[in-house]
């Protein structure tokens, strides 16, 4: 199990009702964190349109997660 800080943005923050939480998760990859928090907060957004960052660096869904990481979950972006 790993202690992970998860940060939510835009629609994810609204779905979760909070901007950040620290969770103890059985997660190997960023995708695991996404799926477990999605179940936790009842979001239906698939990860295909979303992005993820780990400790303020853009990452992939297959990126490994370490104990103490901060995972940033970005819903579909819409700049411009």
């Amino acid at each position, binding site marked *: 199990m790993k202690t992970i800080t998860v940060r939510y*943005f835009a*629609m994810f923050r609204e779905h979760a009702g909070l901007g950040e939480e620290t969770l103890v998760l059985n997660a190997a990859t960023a995708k695991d964190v996404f799926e477990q928090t999605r179940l936790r907060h009842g979001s239906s957004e698939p990860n295909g349109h979303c992005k993820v960052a780990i400790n*303020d660096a853009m990452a992939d869904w297959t990126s490994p997660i370490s104990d103490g990481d901060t995972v940033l979950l970005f*819903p579909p972006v*819409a*700049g*411009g």
Partner: protein
Amino acid sequence: MMEVTTTSIDAEALKKSLANAAAGGFCSFEGWVRNLNEGRDVERLEYEAYEPLVVSEGQRVLDEARRKFPFLEARCVHRTGLLEIGDLAVWVGVASAHRDEAFKACRYIIDELKVRLPIWKKEHYVDGDSDWVNCERCAEHGGH
């Protein structure tokens, strides 16, 4: 340079900041808040950004554009917060020796910005409803 601002964007000042004696051309793109999207009357927009990664990933986009279309100067500014119809939401400017690089780099920067940078847009509609815009899904249906 990639920047995020919570105040209005001064396009003229930005253009002047790119002055370069070797530049023979300048090209800019301005993204404005419009009053209609997908058939719904929009009253205002709300932009949210995660600034640390907008700046770092935006700089990566500018560096890629410079390698592909060698230019002299480039700058991009995105506004966040509540914006009204007609407000300037994003500004991209590129100065180069010749026009081709300026046009192409400007297009590359705004196109990549829209799909890569952690920026979100919430539309507030005239009927009182509001919703987050999903540009990646829009792109699958012909783009914006």
